C-alpha cells in the first residue's frame, strides 16, 4: 500500500463515518428519536478512532514501523479514555 492508497483508505473511513453519523443525527433530530441521536454521536466519536486504525494498518503495510508504533500509541490513549468512560 503506497501513501496515495493509504490516503484514499483514510478518506473513505472519514466519509463513511460522517455519512453514518450525519444521517443518524439528521433523522434522529427530525423524528425526535433518541436512539438514532445516540447512534449518530457514537459513530462520530468512533470516526477518528477508525481513521487511526486505518492509518496504523497503512503504515504497517509499508513497514514504517516507527510511525505505525506512534499510531498505536495514539490508539492506546483513545482506548484508555474508553476504559475510563466505561468505568464511570
Amino acid at each position, binding site marked *: 500500500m503506497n501513501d496515495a492508497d493509504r490516503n484514499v483508505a483514510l478518506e473513505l473511513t472519514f466519509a463513511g463515518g*460522517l455519512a453514518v453519523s450525519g444521517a443518524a443525527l439528521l433523522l434522529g433530530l427530525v423524528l425526535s428519536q433518541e436512539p438514532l441521536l445516540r447512534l449518530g454521536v457514537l459513530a462520530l466519536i468512533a*470516526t477518528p478512532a477508525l481513521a487511526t486504525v486505518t*492509518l496504523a494498518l497503512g503504515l504497517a503495510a509499508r513497514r514504517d514501523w516507527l510511525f505505525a508504533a506512534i499510531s498505536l500509541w495514539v490508539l492506546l490513549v483513545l482506548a484508555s*479514555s474508553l476504559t475510563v468512560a466505561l468505568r464511570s
Partner: protein
Amino acid sequence: MASTPALLFLTGAATGLVGSLLGLGGGVLLVPLLTLALGVPIRTAIAASLMSVIASASASASVNLRRGLVNIRLGLVLEVATSVGGLAGGLASSLLSERALYAAFGVVMAVMGAAMALRSGTRNVISDLSVDTGRLGGRLQEGAHTFVYRVKRLPLGLFASLVAGAVSGLLGVGGGIVKVPVLNAFCGIPIRVAAATSTFMIGVTAAASAILYYARGDVALPLTAAICIGSLPASLLGARLSDRVHARSLKVLMALVLAAVALQMGVKAL
C-alpha cells in the same frame, strides 16, 4: 436565550467554517458563543464543542488528504505530545484556579496573535525542490507551483502540542488554536499545511475527551445534533475554500481570532 435548532445549526455552520479554514476545529469559538450568547451551561457547551470539533476535523481531513495538505508523519509525532498534554491537563485541572488558567491562556493567545500579525507577509516555503526536507518535511502544491518545506524547531512544536493537549483537556477546545500559530510562525510549516495537519489530529484529541463527556451524560443530544449537522457541510466548504484564500489573509484572520480569544480570556481572568 432560547436556542432553536435553526440557530444552533447556524452557530455550528459559522464556527465550523472558520474552524476548518484555520485548522482550529471551531471549539474555541463555539464554547463562548454557546455559553455567553445562547446561555448553554458550560459542561454541555464543552461536550457539544468537542463533538463539533470531531465533525469539523473529520470533514476537513477528507478534503485535505485528497489535496495532499496533511503531513501525517508530523501530525502523528505531535499527537504523542498532545495526548500526554491531555492527560496532564486533566490532572492539573484540579490544581489550577480558573482565573489563573484564563489569564495564562489569554497571555499566550495575545503573544501568538502578535507573532502571526507580524509574520503575515512571511512564507515558509522553499522554491528549490532539490532541498532535502528531512523525514518530517514535505511538498506543497499551490496552483501550478510546487514548493517544499522543512520542519524547524521540532522541540518547540512538541512543547506547543503538549500545551495544546492540556488546553484541550481543560477548556474543551481542539488545541489547534495553540498548534497552528506555533507551527506556522516558529516551526517553518506553511499555514495551509499547519491548518490541515492540525485539523487531521484534533479530531483524535477531541474524541479522547468526548467519550468521557458522553459517559458522564454531558452530551445534550438534540443540541449537539443540530450543531454538528450545521458544522459538517460548512467544514467541507471551509476546507475547499482554504485553497482559494490567500495565505496572508488566512494569517490575518488567525491573528484576529487569537486577539478576540485573548481579550475574552483576559476579561474572564479579571
